[in-house]
C-alpha cells in the first residue's frame, strides 16, 4: 500500500507547529498504525531528519499511553479502539491520513504528537482512591458484593486514562474520565465512606485543570477504547448534587 501522511510537527509548546507531508511506499495491511509510524521514523532517521515524537508503550491497548487524532477522530476510524490496536487494513492504497495530537487546553503539547496528560493524575490525587493503608484490610470475603454491582463497578474501572474522551469532546470535558472513577468507587461498599468528599474534590479539580463542562453530546463514549458509558456522567452529577445538598 502507498500511504500519504500529513502530520502535526511542533518542536515544543513554545514553538509554532504545522502540518508536514510525508509518503510511504510499502505499507502492509497487517501492520499496526504505530508500526507504520515506526517505518516512517526509520526512513526519517536515514534521511537525517528528526523523527516524529509520539506516545506509545504496551501496544496491546491497555496502558493508555498512545493516542492521536487520525483524520479528525480520536484513535482513528474504528469505534472503541486504541491507536495501537488500529491496523492498516482499515485504510486503502493511496489514502491520505491526517495525524494530529490530542488537543485540549488542559493537555499542553510537549512535542509533535505528545501531550501532557498530568491533569488526570491530579484529578485522581484529589480523591480517586479508597483510603485503605497497607495492613488495614479486613478478610476479603467479609465484604460480599452483589454480582451485578461488582460488574457495574468493573465497567467503570476499566478506564485506561488515554484522554480520547477529552480530545473528542467539543468542550474538552473530562467528565467521562472523572465519572468513571467516581462511579467505580461509589458503587463499591468499601468506597462509600469517602464518596461525598471524593466527588466534590475530584469535580473541583477537574474544573481547576481547565477541562470544559459536559454538554451531553455523548461523543466521548463513541471513542472510548474501553466503552465506558456516559451513564457514569449522570451518576457523577447525581453523586455531586447529593454531596452538595447533604454535606455538613
Amino acid at each position, binding site marked *: 500500500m502507498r500511504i500519504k501522511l500529513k502530520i502535526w510537527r511542533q518542536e515544543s509548546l513554545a514553538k509554532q507547529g504545522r502540518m508536514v507531508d510525508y509518503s510511504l511506499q510499502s505499507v502492509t495491511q497487517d501492520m499496526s498504525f504505530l508500526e507504520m509510524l515506526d517505518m516512517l521514523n526509520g526512513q526519517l532517521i536515514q534521511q537525517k531528519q528528526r523523527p516524529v515524537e509520539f506516545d506509545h508503550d504496551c501496544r496491546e491497548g491497555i496502558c493508555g499511553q498512545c493516542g492521536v487524532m487520525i483524520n479528525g477522530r480520536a484513535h482513528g476510524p474504528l469505534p472503541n479502539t486504541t491507536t495501537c490496536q488500529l491496523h492498516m487494513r482499515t485504510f486503502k492504497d493511496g489514502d491520505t491520513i491526517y495525524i494530529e495530537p490530542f488537543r485540549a487546553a488542559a493537555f499542553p503539547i510537549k512535542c509533535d504528537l505528545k501531550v501532557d496528560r498530568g491533569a*488526570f*493524575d491530579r484529578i485522581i490525587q484529589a480523591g480517586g482512591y479508597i483510603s485503605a493503608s497497607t495492613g488495614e484490610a479486613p478478610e476479603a470475603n467479609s465484604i*460480599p458484593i452483589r454480582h451485578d454491582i461488582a460488574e457495574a463497578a468493573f465497567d467503570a474501572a476499566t478506564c485506561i486514562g488515554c484522554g480520547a474522551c477529552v480530545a473528542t469532546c467539543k468542550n474538552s470535558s473530562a467528565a467521562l474520565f472523572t465519572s468513571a472513577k467516581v462511579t467505580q468507587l461509589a458503587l463499591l461498599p468499601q468506597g462509600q465512606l469517602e464518596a461525598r468528599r471524593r466527588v466534590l474534590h475530584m469535580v473541583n479539580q477537574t474544573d481547576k485543570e481547565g477541562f470544559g463542562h459536559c454538554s451531553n453530546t455523548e461523543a466521548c463514549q463513541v471513542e472510548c477504547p474501553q466503552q465506558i458509558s456516559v451513564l457514569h456522567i449522570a451518576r457523577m452529577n447525581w453523586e455531586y448534587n447529593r454531596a452538595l445538598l447533604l454535606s455538613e
Partner: protein
Amino acid sequence: MLEAKIPDGPLEQKWVHYRSTAKLVSPGNRRKLHVIVVGTGLSGSSLAASLGEMGYQVTCFCFQDTARRAHSVAAQGGVNACKNYKNDGDTVLRMFHDTIKGGDFRSREANVYRLAECSVELIDQAVAQGVPFAREYSGYLSNRSFGGVQVSRTFYARGQTGQQLLLGAYQALMRQVASGRVQLFTRHEMLDLVVIEGKARGIIVRNMDTGAVERHGGHAVVLATGGFGKIYYLSTLAMGCNVSATWRAHKRGAFFANPSWTQIHPTCLPQSGEYQSKLTLMSESLRNDGRIWVPKNKDEKRAAKEIPESERDYYLERRYPSFGNLCPRDVASRAAKERIDAGYGVGPLKNAVYLDFSRAINEQGKEKIAEKYGNLFRMYQKITGLNAYAEPMRISPAAHFSMGGLWVDYELMTNVSGLYAVGEANFADHGANRLGANSLLQASVDGYFIAPYTIPNYLANEIKTGPVDVNQSAFAAAEEAALGKLKRLLGTQGTMPADHFHKTLGRILYDKCGLSRSRAGLEEAIARIRTLRDQFYRELRVPGGPEMNSELEKAGRVADYLEVGELMCYDALTREESCGAHFRVEYQTSDGEALRNDKDFSFTSAWEWAGTGKEPILHKEPLHFDFVTPSVRSYK
C-alpha cells in the same frame, strides 16, 4: 561472600520470626529517612505508597507519563492466593510446593514459602482498595485454576487483573503524593546508581521531556524496574521495558542472578511480518477451555475446521495426559516449538499452533465462552482480523518474563548495602520457571508486605546519617559518566537506527539463547553479540540532541541490552543441565524432557561485573532443600 540471610527455624516460623526481631524505626524518626524508589509498576507503586503511609520520605520515578501505565497493567490472567475459598485442599504448604516444583527446584525454600504465606493478605488489601475481582452470584470472590496447578487459587478481574491491581496501587500512591509524603517524577529514566563507601546513596536520572540530568540522594535505593524480556525485541513486553536501571546498578557492583532464565510464554500471537514490533499475549487462562493441536500431516492445506479429529495431533494431551493443555508454560512452549520446528506449524508462515475452542463452545455455549474470554476474542479479532468463535486461534511462543534479575538476599537487598530490588527486577522467587498468576503476586507481596519490613531494618542504622548531600564527589563523578555515555551515543555518526541493532540482537538471542540452547550456539552468540556491539558504536545514528528524543532513549536501552545479552549467554553456557525455562539440548532424556542435574547445579548463579570486554565472574549461592525433596518434575 553471598549471604542470603535466611532466618533459622522451621519453614513456617521464618518470616514471623524475622518480623518479630527486625529493627524498627520509631514514627518520629521516619521523616528523617529518605527512600528512592525507581519504577511505579505493581511493586514500585505499592512499596512507595506503603513507605509513605508509614511516614518515610519517598521519591519515586517512572519513565512513563504517569505511574498508572507501567507494564504490570498488561498482566491478564490473575493473581494466586491460597485462600482455599474453593475448599479444594489448598494450603500455604501446598502453594509453596507447587511454586517450588514449578520453578524446577531452583529457588530458595524460605522465599517461596513467604510468597505463599503473604498471598492471603494481598487479596484482602486489594479488595479493600476497591480492586473489582470477579465474584459469584453470592457476592463472594470467584476463583479459577491456572496453568501448572490442580487447585483453584487464582483470583481474577476479567482479563485485566494486572490493570486493576496496578490501579489499586497507583491510587494508593496518588493518595500519598497528594499528602506530600511521596514525591513523584514521571518521564524520568535512571542513568546511574551512586555508591558511597559501599552504600547506595542515590541515583542520577534524566528528565526525558527536557533532557536535564539530575541528582537525587537517599538513605536507600529500591529498583522496581521490572523485567527485560524486551531484549528479544519481539516479546509480549511494552516497548519501553528495559534493563537499564538494574544493569547500571550491576556495573556499580550489584550481582545479576540467573540472567538467562527467560520465560517464553506459550499463548501469544505469531509474528506476521518483518516490521512487527510486538507479540501480543493471549491470556493463559484460554488454555482452561481451549485445546491445542496441529495437523498430523505436515503438508495439510485444509482449513482447521475441515480437518477431521483423527487427523489432528493434540500433542499436549498426548504427551502429558494428566495435565494436558494446563501443563506449565515452559513445557507448553517447548512442546509447541518442537512441533513447529518439525514442520507441523500452521498459518501462512507455519510458525503457530491451533488453540481451539470448538468443543468448549459446543459444551458450554458461545455466551458462556464470551463472558469468560470476550475481551480476548475481541483483541484477537482486532489484531488478526480473524474470528476465534468460528475458527481456532493461531498462537505461538514469545519472550515474556525474566525469572533472573538482581541477586537479592531474604531481605530483598542486593549485595550492595542499601540497594534493594523488588518485583520482576529481582531473581528471588520463581526459580527456573514462573507459574502463571505468580508474577502479580510476587510484585505485590514484595511491595506491600516484604520490603516495608526489611528496609526499616537497614534504615534503623541510618537515623544519624542526616540528609544525603548530592554535591559529594561520587554524585559528580556518576553524573559526568552518565553525560559521557549520552554524548557518545549522540556523537556516533553512523546511519542505522537503534532498532536495527535491537532486532538483530533479538534474533541472535531467540535462536541461540531462547527456548533451547547448546554450547556451540551460545559460543557463537557471544561472538556475534560482541561484533554487533562494536558495530553499534560505529554505525548507530541518533538524530537530534540531548533534549526530548525517543531515539536517544532507545539507544541507551539497546546499549545496555548489548551487554546483558552477552551475560545471558555466559549464564546459559555455564549451566550444563536443563531446568525450567533453560533447556540445553545436550541435557535431555531419551523422550526429549529436561534433564536436571541436582548434584552439580543446585545453585543460583550470581554474576559480578568485571569490566567491559572482560569475562564476568561467577559466584554460586548453593540452594538447600531442607523441607522438600527435589523430584523430577513430571506433568505426565
